[in-house]
């Protein structure tokens, strides 16, 4: 059953509550315009809020995202919808768009939830925690993560056994299983697409053994192991809970590889791997960290210095292409690789391997537009019609793109891009008033 609701109009619709969408929302709202920010997940903050520390300054990601998400959630000009998806956008005329928004039930009244976690304790279900990239479990009644915004519980209805234990203990009666999907029609004058990116799924490269060998993990999983809200008490390998002491990074996993359909460079993997290597050296002073790379792309402000700093700390950089990874009985991994320096094939043993997975397009936004075509570039990112001078412009007038929805980029570039998209959107609103 879907209830239909008509709600008031907004000046700008921003799709995606990650760092780019959030930044754009704040910029536009601060100029006095009404913004509707739509996030499909339970919390805003995107991928960044789940990171440990960020290069090249090693600020904790939370220190940068939490004040922003907090500002977003209380901004008088921003209406925030989480657990929502835009199902279609019709362009009626020049600066008039109509969007249909589907709000999935959270089964919790956000305003009433105090995040006391009693429901979490009471819930008898345990399933893999997607916010910890499946390294530990979570309950079916759960708060996504400790710095989530809104910080409120949610019910994972797919895994819920409807025992009712959560609502019995809830002190504010905020759990409500009668909630249903809702649909909204919204009128807006401009749209910003900040739908972000998808991480490469290393299951598509069976030769690295991800999924099969438990000690082959993705960089996002390592990111969680290093974060303050980490799944384990320290860095552990998932196969047997051992503290690793010989960790390898495989760069360009799913990037610069036409054979898996992604010929471009993901722009961030070198740097986040170098950052993780520095954090690992700090967390496990006795550990060896080796980074297998093709080229190190430390191109941004302060990046080259950061790379040199990692070398100085003793991180081992090996110019080499990984052919195959195999597992030993004790869970250690044998990396067969072409050592480019020595021009021969070699093998090395590590007790944990981190796949530095690349950035892929999120194609969610492409299906939205019914009346106009949202063009994509050859790599399926949102096409920039004037990529040199107006990078935020898309093939639809009045629809702008920000952040990684148009291609791989790091956090500073995403934030600048969001500033750029908000400038275009504000100009568009002023010019079409």
């Amino acid at each position, binding site marked *: 059953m879907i209830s239909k609701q008509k709600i008031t109009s907004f000046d700008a619709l921003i799709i995606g509550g990650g760092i780019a969408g959030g930044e754009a929302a704040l*910029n536009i709202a601060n*100029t*006095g315009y009404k913004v509707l920010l739509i996030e499909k997940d339970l919390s805003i903050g995107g991928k960044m809020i789940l990171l440990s520390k*960020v290069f090249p*300054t090693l*600020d904790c990601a*939370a*220190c940068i995202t*939490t*004040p922003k*998400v*907090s500002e977003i*959630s209380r901004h008088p000009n921003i209406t925030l919808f989480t657990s929502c998806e835009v199902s279609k956008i019709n362009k009626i005329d020049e600066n008039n768009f109509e969007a249909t928004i589907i709000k999935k039930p959270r089964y919790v009244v956000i305003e009433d939830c105090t995040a006391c976690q009693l429901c979490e304790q009471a819930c008898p279900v345990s399933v893999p925690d997607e916010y910890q990239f499946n390294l530990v479990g979570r309950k079916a009644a759960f708060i996504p993560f400790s*710095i989530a*915004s*809104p*910080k409120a519980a949610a019910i994972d209805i797919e895994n819920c056994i409807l025992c009712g234990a959560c609502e019995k203990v809830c002190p504010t009666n905020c759990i409500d299983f009668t909630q249903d999907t809702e649909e909204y029609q919204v009128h807006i004058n401009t749209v910003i697409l900040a739908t972000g990116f998808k991480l490469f799924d290393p299951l598509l490269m069976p030769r690295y053994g991800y999924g099969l060998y438990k000690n082959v993990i993705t960089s996002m999983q390592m990111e969680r192991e290093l*974060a*303050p*809200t980490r799944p384990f008490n320290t860095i552990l390998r998932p196969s047997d809970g051992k503290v690793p002491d010989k960790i390898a990074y495989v760069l360009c996993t799913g990037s*610069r590889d036409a054979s898996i359909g992604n*010929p*471009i*460079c993901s*722009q961030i993997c070198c740097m986040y791997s170098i950052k993780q290597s520095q954090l690992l050296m700090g967390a496990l002073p006795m550990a060896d960290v080796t980074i297998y790379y093709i*080229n*190190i*792309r*430390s*191109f*941004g*402000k*302060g*990046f*080259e*210095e950061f790379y040199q700093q990692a070398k100085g700390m003793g991180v081992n950089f090996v*110019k080499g292409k990984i052919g195959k990874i195999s597992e030993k009985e004790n869970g250690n991994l044998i990396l067969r690789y072409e050592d*480019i*320096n*020595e*021009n*021969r094939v070699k093998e090395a043993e590590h007790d944990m391997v981190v796949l530095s997975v690349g950035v892929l397009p999120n194609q969610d936004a492409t299906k939205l537009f019914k009346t106009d075509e949202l063009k994509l570039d050859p*790599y399926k990112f949102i096409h920039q019609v004037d*990529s*040199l*001078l107006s*990078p935020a412009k898309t093939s639809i007038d009045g629809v702008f793109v920000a952040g990684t929805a148009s291609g*791989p*980029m790091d956090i*500073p570039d995403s*934030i*600048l891009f969001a*500033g*750029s998209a*908000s*400038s*275009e959107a*504000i*100009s568009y609103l*002023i010019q079409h008033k």
Partner: protein
Amino acid sequence: MKKKIGVYICHCGGNISDYVDVEKVRQAIENEEGVSLAKTTIFACSDSNQKDMVADINTNQLDGVVVASCSPKLHLITFRNVCERANLNKYNYVHANIREQVSWAHSDDKLGATEKAIHIVKAAIAKVRYAESLEPNKIVAQKAVAIIGGGVAGMKAAIALSDKDCPVYLIEREFFIGGRVAQWDTMFTTNETGKEVVTKLYNNLILRPNVTIFTGAEVIKNVGSIGDFKLKVKIAPRYIKDKCKEGNLQKAIDACPVVLPDEFNFNITTRKAIYHNFPSEYPQSPVIDIKNCTRCGKCEQICENIDFSQKEEILDINVGSVLMATGFDPYTPKDGEFGYNEVDNVVTLPQFKRMIELSDKKLLFKEKEVKNIAYIYCVGSRQAEGENTYCSRYCCTSAIHSSLLVKKKFANIYNYHFTRGIRTYGKQEVLYAESSQQGDIYMQSYEDALPIVSRINDKTIVKINDILTGGKEITVEADLIVLVTGMVPRADNSVGALFKLPKGRDNFFNEIHMKLRPVETFIDGVTISGACQGPKNIMESANSALSAATKSYSYISKGILETEPIVAVVDKNACSWCNSCSEACPFDAISKIEIGEKTIASINNAVCKGCGMCLPVCPTDAIDLIAYSSKEIESMIDSLI
């Protein structure tokens, strides 16, 4: 004196708590005089903690708040806002820096770090005890922005601001608009030429009544600050009358006997003392290079539009914000650096780009046809010995793009790339793939053994030990060597000094925080964009220019700006007017007034910038700065010992 102070000590998710025993700090300060609440928190800046703080302030009627966390440059404003939301005047908030100046600085000494954190929090408590509620000064913001630099970044920012109905002054030092991009031929990714891009922007700009463009113009003085910058702009004459017709001017140019290296073409060609940059340049009027003009009068005889009586003008402009877009200089190699200026056929990448554009049919260098081209990468970047340790970001892509272009335009070209690892990040990677597929040869040098350029028997040879072939020594005979030079800050960046803009370790202008405040500077009201902040390609420059425009606009869009109410105050009883303070004040904020029998100093709050220069010169110690009074500073000192 405050009686109900709330203190929050932040773990910063380990950044602090890994080195500072935050619980010990909490215990050490919870019984300090006036402290009624002392908590630790994993992330003080998180939404949930901010909400808790608001609730704490309300339920406990706190009258002062201290958060001990990261540097105040990051989150002072965050926590001031928390206080405001709890209806506590934000000046009752004091920030203690126990991350940058404690946990990180003393990560080698946990006991020492904890001890220091305790003292620093105590000092913050001492300061907050004396804190007073204050109202910010409100000033009228001039609704106009000065953009310094008329390159792509400056022009984009000008359009963005003009679109927002904000008047713009675009101030370009050169006589022609367009900056570095005007000098480029086709560009990745769109294959538009630099000229096309500049033309597009210029044609858009000149239609706008709220944009004023100055060329040959330099800011020579700046007085004032955010909301009200008063700039003096010096405009050099072109010595050509407005609205002149081309016809005779070209003859005048032809007649000019002075021949000079043409900087627009990076000195690979020459120009006259009366000159154009290129036929479709903007503004479409030549200029006389008066420094090199011999005043022979030949041009005047031919063309009636020459006017040597034109004088330099000084204009006063008044703006609310200044947006810097002054760009970069290409690195100039030192004599002998990879054969530069010593071996004949060594050019820089910018020179090479001009050569490609200016050559027709055959690529000639000093009359000889060029076939083998060697590119040496990272010249002036990633220097192990030298001041530029950074990567210049754009040059790998730019060099590869040029190498593809030269191959397309001319026959029989062979490209040899002497790299230090190609950095065609993102979608630029496809260029590198295309170049490799076309048979370009890529080699990579060891970090400690860069390629060597030498001249042997009239031949120019590049030698490398190539990583990609297992360290094999490879030599290439090259007709032309292209030094892939990076970006460096403008040699003459004096306009930055005029605004006191801080520079980073790389000597480019520095932002406050790369992620939180990426286009703002420590100088309120001045934003930075484009390559003056660090190497960027055109798309990145456009993004940062638009970001900076958004920020500059936000300062002035409301017409009213709030500034810190931190001003000097005079103790009427102690003051006996001696003029010392007024002499010390750099802003003329102090004058004398008569109160009854007595003459004392009076501070003009609207003009006082709160520097405190008047404080130490007062013989009777009659002046204090709000929030930095002697009682506050001295009680902080008492707590620190």
